[in-house]
């Protein structure tokens, strides 16, 4: 209190306020959010953690405490490792392809041309199309004999595979749809970033005799790096949680070739009624996604975005 000279006699409220700071008011305003998040996010998440220590089928009157047995069973399960592998393949495939395509199309669309708005809409449509509807339509497109994809390939003299019925091709087919749904989003974000690069850089480069490829390589690409980083992380987190696409297109099959973690979790919980085990799966998924997020924060120094 030394040296603090107040102009006015402090009122009751401000004296009280000095001891507690702005906490009461802040808490009061946070209350609705805390209540909603607590009820619908934190409480279920913690219950799920608790449940992952039990064996319970959701119906039996008793829950059997098994400690960490669900986790050790999970790590010993070949199906889990297969799901992890499939998820990484899917996430890696969708992220890289959608990134490359999104950037390529964004650079092409960044030139002033007629119908630019129309193209943007067209590319963005898949993003806002419901996943289930997309999955159903693509399932038809991938039909081995009647589908557009194989008929197109037959048109150029190639015999397409049985896509969704073939363990070697089913995941590729699902990745294609995942990319198709993701490209539009990447494109729109990249376009916004491209508009932020000053024209002067390119003009200077042209004066120095740089060709279009060199301009792209030395100006566009480095200046898009923060955006790229943001898109990689969001795409990975998104792809890690894929479920609906797999549910509609392949049900994890054939032979587990598209059995992503999200679908594996769904099977354990809602087909097999293994609620304790499924909770353990959910927490392992949470740990993986959390790790990706932490790495992102480290690399971007807390989201400062200077890559």
């Amino acid at each position: 209190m030394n040296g603090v000279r107040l102009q006015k006699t402090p009122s009751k409220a401000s004296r009280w306020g000095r001891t507690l700071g702005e906490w009461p008011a802040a808490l009061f305003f946070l209350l609705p959010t805390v209540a909603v998040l607590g009820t619908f996010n934190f409480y279920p998440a913690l219950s799920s953690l608790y449940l992952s220590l039990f064996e319970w089928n959701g119906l039996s009157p008793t829950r059997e405490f098994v400690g960490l047995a669900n986790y050790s069973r999970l790590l010993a399960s070949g199906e889990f490792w297969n799901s992890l592998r499939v998820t990484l393949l899917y996430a890696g495939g969708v992220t890289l392809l959608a990134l490359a395509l999104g950037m390529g199309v964004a650079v092409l669309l960044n030139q002033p041309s007629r119908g630019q708005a129309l193209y943007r809409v067209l590319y963005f449509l898949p993003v806002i199309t419901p996943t289930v509807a997309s999955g159903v339509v693509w399932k038809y497109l991938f039909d081995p004999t009647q589908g557009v994809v194989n008929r197109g390939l037959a048109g150029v003299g190639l015999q397409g595979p049985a896509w969704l019925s073939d363990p070697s091709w089913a995941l590729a087919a699902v990745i294609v749809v995942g990319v198709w749904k993701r490209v539009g989003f990447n494109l729109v974000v990249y376009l916004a970033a491209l508009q932020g690069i000053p024209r002067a850089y390119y003009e200077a480069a042209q004066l120095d005799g740089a060709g279009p490829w060199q301009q792209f390589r030395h100006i566009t690409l480095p200046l898009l790096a923060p955006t790229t980083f943001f898109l990689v992380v969001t795409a990975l987190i998104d792809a890690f949680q894929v479920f609906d696409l797999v549910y509609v297109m392949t049900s994890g099959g054939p032979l587990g070739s598209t059995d992503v973690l999200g679908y594996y979790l769904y099977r354990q919980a809602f087909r097999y009624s293994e609620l304790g085990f499924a909770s353990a799966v959910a927490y392992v998924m949470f740990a993986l996604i959390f790790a990706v997020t932490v790495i992102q924060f480290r690399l971007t120094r807390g989201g400062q975005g200077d890559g």
Partner: protein
Amino acid sequence: MQAHWLKAIVTMTVALLSLGTAQKLTFWHYWDGANGQVLQGLIERYQKEHPGVTIESVFVPGGELLTKLQTAITAKQTPSMAISDLVAMPLLTQSGALSPLDDFIRQSNLNLADYFPGPLVYGLYQGKRYSLPVSASNLGLFWNKNLFRAAGLDPNRPPRNWDELLRFARQIKAKTGKWGIELFTQGGEGTTWQTQVYFWGAGAEFLNANNTAPAFNSPQGVRALQFLVDLVQKEKVAPVAPWGLFGRGEAAMVMDGSWMTQFFPQQVNFELGAAPFPYPAGGHPATNMGGEQIFIFQNADAASAKAAWDFINWFSSTPVQVEWDRGTGFLPVRRSVANDPAYRAWVSNARPLMRPFVDSMAFARPRPPVARYPQISDIFAKYVQEALLGRLSPKEALDRAAQEVTPLLR
């Protein structure tokens, strides 16, 4: 004047009395569309015939009913009664939340011997009966008469055994270039329950007699799977492809459900035949079955449990079941319904394709009523796929499946 007053007083009294004894029952089910309307009609009639009982039927979409029941049981907020798909019955009977029906069945003299044996298996747990079958469906053979004609086969003669099935399939492939038969190769329960029909036909069992160990990797089982693998790999009369070839006229035969007798005629542009599914020489006629079971929850007080049972007893009675099956196209669960002259006449006139399915109820078999059946089914289907794709021999595939299934039955 006096008479008017008297009438009013009597009406009031009756109304008040019925209020006092009013029974309000809730009934959860997933019958929608036409089936839901038939149910609603029956419930309204029941309420008219039993003043003082109101039944509130709550529709829950099929995939959500079990989850909703789980939540209700955990929260002790169960309805008076509900139905479930029979595959989920083992979980429910073992939950301790259902009320045993044995005393009710005795008191009402409900004749269980009149029921087909298959559907009755699901309600039993530790010697007590917790549910009754109220609907059934099963699998049979559909064939495309146009393709049979084009291949030079008698369009009105379905294959009666596996040898004929294979011979017809070969001839169709050779003469028309179309597939002989379509198998469900996409895995999961769809693959398992079709494959079981071939296994049972060949004399193989799926699990042992008390459902504690797998039995499908027997010589009979290997023989059945070998037959399917040969259709795909050696004979090339069946493809590994998405489901739907038969409906598009690209395959001449298919194993499909009794419910398709309603849908195929609207969907296909060829002449259809239906028959019980063929089995190998020296084997047994067999088919798989689905359907629903009805049950009462524990937490009801004695009066409302009794009221719920009275409705179930009425709903299960032969005349009501005849009406129910005619309205919905479900198969009978009772012999007296299957043999009812009015029902038989309706099948012959309105649904001739359903006749073989009704006849197959006598040998329709239940999938083992074990709680972990969905997992077991997925494992089995996965190895059937491995064999169909030629990655494992039938024997090896079934042995590996048995190895994975064994710990789940302990």
